[in-house]
C-alpha cells in the first residue's frame, strides 16, 4: 500500500516550534524514500491552537507533501475542520475528512481508483516488455528480458554482438513473435505485435543492414514512409486528378520538411542504390521520420561512419527528440554516443539482461564491465 500515515492523534500543538519538529521528521522520512505517497493523516483528538495553526498550514504545503498523490484525513475536530476549511477554501478538503480510520481507508481506495482512471499520459506505460523469450529452433535469441521505456526519452540497448539486441527491436515492432512474454505499448498489453499494427500505432525503425528500396529515388523512399497516411485508392490514383493529386502534393510538402531537417535536398531525385553508405543511413532515418512516429527504433544508426558523420547523426537524433518529442530506443556500440545522449540503458548479453539504469549506473556496474565494456588492468 503506497500510503504514508501521519499520526497526529491526541497531540497538542500550541507553538510553531512543535509543528516544525514534527514536520521536519515527516520531511526527512519522505525525502529518504524518494517515492510518491498517498497521505493518511489522523487528527483524532488533535488540538491545534491558532498560533500553531498558521505554521501547520505553511508546512502542510511543503514540497514533499505536495508531491504526494492525494491526502485523506481522519477525525478532525470541528474546530480543526473549520480552520482547515477557512484556510484552504477548497471543497475537497471537506470531502476528504472522515470520521473513522476505516472510512478513510475506503475513501483512499476510491481516490486511488479515480486518479488511475484519469491519470495523465505520464502514468501510462509507454513501452514495456515483460519476460520476453524468443527462440529460433534450438537457438535462444532472447531469454526472459524485461524493461520499460519512458515516453519522450532517449534509451539505448547495448551489448556484445549476438546478444539479441536486433532481435529485441524486431520483437517490439512485430517482425519476430516471441514465444513467451508480453509487450505493452501505449497501455495495450499483447503477446506479440503485428508489423502493420505497430506501424499504424506510430512505431518506426531503421535497420542494421540498410533496408531501403534500392530501385527508388530518395524522394520515393521517403514517400513510402507516409504510405499509411495516404487514403486514396488505386483508381483515384490512376486518374491522378483531384483528390489523389492533392494528397500526393500534401504529403510531398511534409516530406520536404524531413528533407530539410536532414539536409538531403541535393540528393532528392537520386536512386538510393547509388548513394554512399552514410547518406543511405540518413535517408533511412528520413523514411522513419516521415511517418511522424511516436517511438523510433534505431538499429546501429552510426555503424560504419566516421567521426563527422557520427556527430551529424547524433545531432539529428537529439534534434528529433527535442523538436518532435519522439521517444527513441537505439542500439549502438559506440559507448561515447550511448553515454552522451541516452538517459536510460539496458545491457544484454547472450539474450539475457545483465544490467540496466542510467549511463553512469551501467558504466560502473562490474557485471557489465566484465561482459562488455572491458576493464583496464
Amino acid at each position, binding site marked *: 500500500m503506497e500510503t504514508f500515515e501521519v499520526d497526529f492523534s491526541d497531540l497538542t500543538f500550541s507553538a510553531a516550534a512543535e509543528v516544525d519538529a514534527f514536520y521536519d521528521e515527516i520531511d526527512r522520512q519522505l525525502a529518504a524514500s524518494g517515492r510518491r505517497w498517498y497521505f493518511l493523516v489522523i487528527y483524532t483528538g488533535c488540538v491545534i491552537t491558532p498560533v500553531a495553526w498558521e505554521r501547520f498550514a505553511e508546512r502542510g504545503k511543503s514540497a514533499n507533501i505536495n508531491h504526494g498523490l492525494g491526502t485523506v484525513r481522519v477525525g478532525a475536530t470541528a474546530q480543526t475542520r473549520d480552520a482547515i476549511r477557512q484556510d484552504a477554501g477548497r471543497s475537497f478538503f471537506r470531502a476528504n475528512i472522515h470520521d473513522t480510520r476505516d472510512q478513510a481507508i475506503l475513501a483512499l481506495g476510491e481516490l486511488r481508483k479515480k486518479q488511475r482512471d484519469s491519470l495523465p499520459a505520464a502514468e501510462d506505460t509507454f513501452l514495456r516488455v515483460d519476460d520476453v523469450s524468443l527462440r529460433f529452433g534450438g537457438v535462444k535469441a532472447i531469454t526472459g528480458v524485461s524493461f520499460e521505456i519512458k515516453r519522450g526519452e532517449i534509451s539505448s540497448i547495448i551489448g556484445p554482438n549476438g546478444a539479441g539486441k536486433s532481435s529485441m527491436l524486431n520483437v517490439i*515492432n*512485430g*517482425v519476430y513473435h516471441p514465444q513467451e512474454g508480453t509487450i505493452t505499448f501505449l497501455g495495450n498489453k499483447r503477446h506479440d505485435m503485428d*508489423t*502493420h499494427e*505497430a*506501424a*499504424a500505432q506510430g512505431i*518506426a*525503425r531503421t*535497420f542494421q543492414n540498410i*533496408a*531501403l*528500396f*534500392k*530501385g*527508388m529515388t530518395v524522394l*520515393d523512399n521517403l*514517400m*513510402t*514512409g*507516409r*504510405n*499509411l497516411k*495516404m487514403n*486514396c485508392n*488505386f483508381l483515384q*490514383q*490512376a*486518374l*491522378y486528378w483531384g483528390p*489523389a*493529386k492533392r494528397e*500526393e*502534393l500534401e504529403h*510531398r*510538402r511534409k516530406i*520536404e520538411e524531413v528533407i530539410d531537417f536532414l539536409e538531403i535536398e541535393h540528393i532528392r531525385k537520386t536512386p538510393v542504390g547509388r548513394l554512399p553508405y552514410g547518406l543511405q543511413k540518413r535517408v533511412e532515418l528520413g*523514411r522513419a521520420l516521415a*511517418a511522424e512516429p511516436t517511438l523510433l527504433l534505431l538499429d546501429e544508426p552510426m555503424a560504419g561512419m566516421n567521426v563527422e558523420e557520427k556527430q551529424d547523426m547524433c545531432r539529428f537524433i537529439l534534434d528529433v527528440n527535442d523538436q518532435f518529442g519522439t521517444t527513441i530506443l537505439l542500439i549502438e556500440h559506440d559507448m561515447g554516443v550511448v553515454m552522451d545522449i541516452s538517459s536510460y540503458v539496458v545491457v544484454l548479453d547472450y539474450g539475457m539482461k545483465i544490467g540496466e539504469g542510467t549511463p553512469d549506473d551501467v558504466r560502473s556496474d562490474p557485471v557489465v564491465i566484465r561482459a562488455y565494456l572491458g576493464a583496464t588492468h
Partner: protein
Amino acid sequence: MLYRDAGQFKDTYSADQQIFPIRQDRIGVTLVLLFAFLVVPVIGDQYWLSAILIPFLVFALAALGLNILTGYAGQLSLGTAAFMAVGAFAAYNFVLRVPAMPILVSFALSGVMAALVGIVFGLPSLRIKGFYLAVATLAAQFFVVWALTKFGWFSNFSSSGVISAQKVVILDYVFDTPVRKYLLVLAIVTVMALAAKNMVRSSVGRAWMAVRDMDVAAGVIGIRLMHTKLLAFAVSSFYCGVAGALYTYCYIGTVEPEAFNIELSFRVLFMIIIGGVGSILGSFLGAAFITLLPIFLNTYAEPLAQVLGLQLPPGIVSNLELIIFGGLIIFFLIVEPLGLARMWQIAKEKMRLWPFPH
C-alpha cells in the same frame, strides 16, 4: 545544346512531379501524339497499320500489364498469354450473349474477368516467391488454355475452340477498316498507358516497388503485402485481358485458345526484358522492338545473303530469329539490365550536356 533544362525552374511541387518535367520532352511527346493521331491515319498504308502498328500497340498494352506485375511489383509471371486469353474469350462471350451492352463496356468487363482470374492465380504469391511463383503462373497458363478448349461453352461450342470476333460497333459507327481499328486501339492504349503512369508514380506504385525491392521492410513500414500483391495481379491481368480482347477484335479476328500459348507469354516477357523492366516507356520500346525484328529479318535476310553470296536454306529465318532473340536477351542482361528505356535515358542525359562531354 538544344535539349537543356536550364532556365526551367520548378516553383511548385505540382510542377516538379509532372510526368514530363522538361519542356522539350513535353513538346516532343505532344508532337509524337499528334503524329500518331492525325498524320499516321492519313499516310499509313494498310500493311503498316494492320501488320505493324496495331500489333505493336496491342502488345505494348500486354507488356504494360506484365511490367506492372513483374517489373514494378517484382512478381515473376509466365502466364501473360493466359490472361490475354481470358480477356479475349470473355469479350467474345459478352458481345455474343449480351448484345445490348456497348462494346467498350464489354472490353472493360473482359478486363475485369481477367483481373479476377489473375487474383485467383496470384493468391499463391502470398506464400511463395521468385521462381516458385513462376511455376504457379505456368499452372495458370496451361490450365486456362486447357479449360477454354475443353469446355465448349466458352467458344459457343465451335470445333477446337475457335472464335471469330464480331464487328466492333460504337454508337452506330462501324470499326472495320484498318484506319478505324488503329485509331480505336491507339485511343484505348493511350488512356491506359496514362493511367498506368499515374498509378506507378503514386503511393500504389511505390508500394509495388517496395514489395519488389524488400518486402520485409515494406511490411515493417505498414504496407499490406497481401493487398499490394493481389492488386498488382489484378491490375496487370486487367491490362492483359484488355490486350487480349483488342488482339482478337482489332488484330487477328479469328483466334483459338492454343494461340495464347506459353511462347506468347515468353514473347511478352522478352519485350519487357529488352524494353526495360519497371518502365512504362520500356514496355513500348520492347514491344516495338519485338514486333519489328521478325519483319526486319524477313525483309532483309534474303537480300543480305545474296549480297554476301550465301545460300540460305529454308526455315533459316525463324531459326535466326530465335538465335538473335536469345542473344539479345543475354546481351541486354549483361550490358544494360534495365533495357532500352535506360539506354534512352542515358542518351537524353548525354544530349543535355551536348556538345560538352560531361
